[in-house]
């Protein structure tokens, strides 16, 4: 074999591309997955809150700090030039990952929350006015509720809520009815962090565009579980957060169509976002820099770039296939337990299980899972209005990722049986 052929063979074996998706190999890439909790192997079912990091991400961040670190966009020296190139290279990586038309449509933010606040504060303040409607769904994370409420309180827009049915499926007809003359923006989750519901995003965008209404999609959960193509969706804004995509915290992404970003005023003022500054007048840089005041999250960007390279090498389709198998298995096992009430049974959904055990407080269930090494989240999951819609105070949420296995679901089921014995 030639060297190249050998390298390719090794790379293929590494991610087991020939044999399909090898979860055991992937698990070995995540150092934390070999640790124990309460003397039991960690079963990490809280990736919806934040995903674990592969060695590639950790190494990339350490490497940049050890060998390449400096500020970007500023220095007249070798390190600054090379790191600026790498940093800007990540913007291209992100653009390719979601198939943006250009890297100039990628604004780096701190997280999803900041990306949505940015759109509300700039696009919202400029293009929305009193009486204009913003449509969200009944299954939004607080990050896609509160910024619009703040805008409502500030300038008098109206929030309209597109309802869901009992399975957690968006009611498309009711959504369509909300797209009236007053509605000037749709801001909707692409995938619910509580129910796992994946909405028909392309259809949602098409319906809104038929009325000339732009659409922001919250892809925090969606980009993690499947291939996203912002041009195919024709989304006007698409936002997500790095730490759920196996990348570091404190970095997020706002994709915005170039013609929209070009019309938006800056978000915060400071260095990096200007063209020229005098005491009399400052002119602002072009997008995306206009929206990136101050020193950006450099190390985090390198980490996010490594995370995207990592999932791309495995393939989002392969990840989705594996997670679909986990979803099917989990739904089956949980469905067999008479005391489990599942929330979120939409036909299109990600491997997120929200449930309660009848007669047992979710906290007691989650504490018992924790004793078994199973990490879940309990409570309202930053979605209080959705909890009210579901008529519960809170749920236990097991949110799975590419590194999880059916055997781990068995561990959870056994722990749920123990909870039944302890509390039932």
């Amino acid at each position, binding site marked *: 074999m030639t060297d190249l052929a050998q390298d390719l063979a090794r790379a293929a074996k590494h991610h087991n591309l020939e044999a399909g998706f090898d979860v055991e190999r992937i698990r070995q890439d995540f150092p934390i997955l070999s640790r124990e909790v309460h*003397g039991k192997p960690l079963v990490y079912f809280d990736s919806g809150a934040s995903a674990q990091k592969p060695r590639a991400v950790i190494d990339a961040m350490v490497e940049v700090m050890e060998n390449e670190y400096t500020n970007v966009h500023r220095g007249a020296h070798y390190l600054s030039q090379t790191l600026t190139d790498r940093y800007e290279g990540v913007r291209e990586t992100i653009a390719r990952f979601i198939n943006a038309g250009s890297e100039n449509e990628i604004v780096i933010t701190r997280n999803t929350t900041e990306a949505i606040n940015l759109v509300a504060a700039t696009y919202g303040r400029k293009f929305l006015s009193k009486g204009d409607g913003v449509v969200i769904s009944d299954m939004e994370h607080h990050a896609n509720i509160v910024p619009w409420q703040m805008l409502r309180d500030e300038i008098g827009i109206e929030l309209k809520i597109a309802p869901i049915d009992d399975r957690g499926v968006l009611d498309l007809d009711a959504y369509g009815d909300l797209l009236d003359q007053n509605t000037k923006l749709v801001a909707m989750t692409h995938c619910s962090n509580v129910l796992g519901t994946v909405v028909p995003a392309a259809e949602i965008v098409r319906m809104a565009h038929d009325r000339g209404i732009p659409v922001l999609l919250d892809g925090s959960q969606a980009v993690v579980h499947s291939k996203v193509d912002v041009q195919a969706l024709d989304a006007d804004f698409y936002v997500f957060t790095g730490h759920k995509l196996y990348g570091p915290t404190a970095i997020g992404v706002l994709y915005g169509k170039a013609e929209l970003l070009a019309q938006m005023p800056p978000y915060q003022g400071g260095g990096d976002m200007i063209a020229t500054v005098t005491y009399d007048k400052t002119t602002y840089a072009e997008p995306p820099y206009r929206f990136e005041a101050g020193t950006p999250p450099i190390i985090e960007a390198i980490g996010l770039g490594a995370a995207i390279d990592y999932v791309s090498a495995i393939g989002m389709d392969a990840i989705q296939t594996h997670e679909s198998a986990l979803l099917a298995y989990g739904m089956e096992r949980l469905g067999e337990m008479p005391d489990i009430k599942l929330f979120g049974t939409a036909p299109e959904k990600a491997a997120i299980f929200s449930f309660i055990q009848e007669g047992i407080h979710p*906290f007691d269930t989650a504490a018992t899972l924790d004793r078994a090494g199973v990490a879940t989240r309990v409570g309202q999951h930053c979605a209080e209005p959705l909890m009210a819609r579901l008529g519960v*105070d809170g749920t236990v949420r097991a949110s799975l990722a590419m590194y999880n296995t059916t055997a781990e679901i068995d561990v959870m089921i056994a722990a749920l049986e123990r909870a039944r014995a302890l509390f039932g």
Partner: protein
Amino acid sequence: MSIPAEKLTQYDEYVEALDLLDEESRFEYIIDIGKRADKTPFPSDCMDDVHLMHGCMSKVWIVHEVVDGVHEFRGQSDAIIVKGLVSMMTGSFSGLTSDELAAVTLDQVRGLNLGALTMQRQVGMMAMLKHMQKLSQRAENGADRSAAAE
């Protein structure tokens, strides 16, 4: 201010029992206490917003009265584990004066969990203590005011 040892017998009993157990058994012990707490029902009309302690992942209610100059507490929660924890807290630290209550330390509170639950922050045992201290202070101040009014 130190707390007279004889006032902490219930606390000591809990800590001794927990000490003898491994982590897994401690977990079940706390659940047991939570279940046993139901044998002396908490007044259901006190499970209201007035007695609700804020900032917990499950609901926690604490009622309080002053008997012969010391503070008596009873606690309730909708989660059994938390009911166990709040029962241990109210059982351990009832019968103290306000000053004694103010002298209860973080380490003492930690002694009532001993790693059985990693959700210390959410369970909020320290928050329970603070809440009990606040209730006692409020009663104290109220008593001062009514004494002054007499």
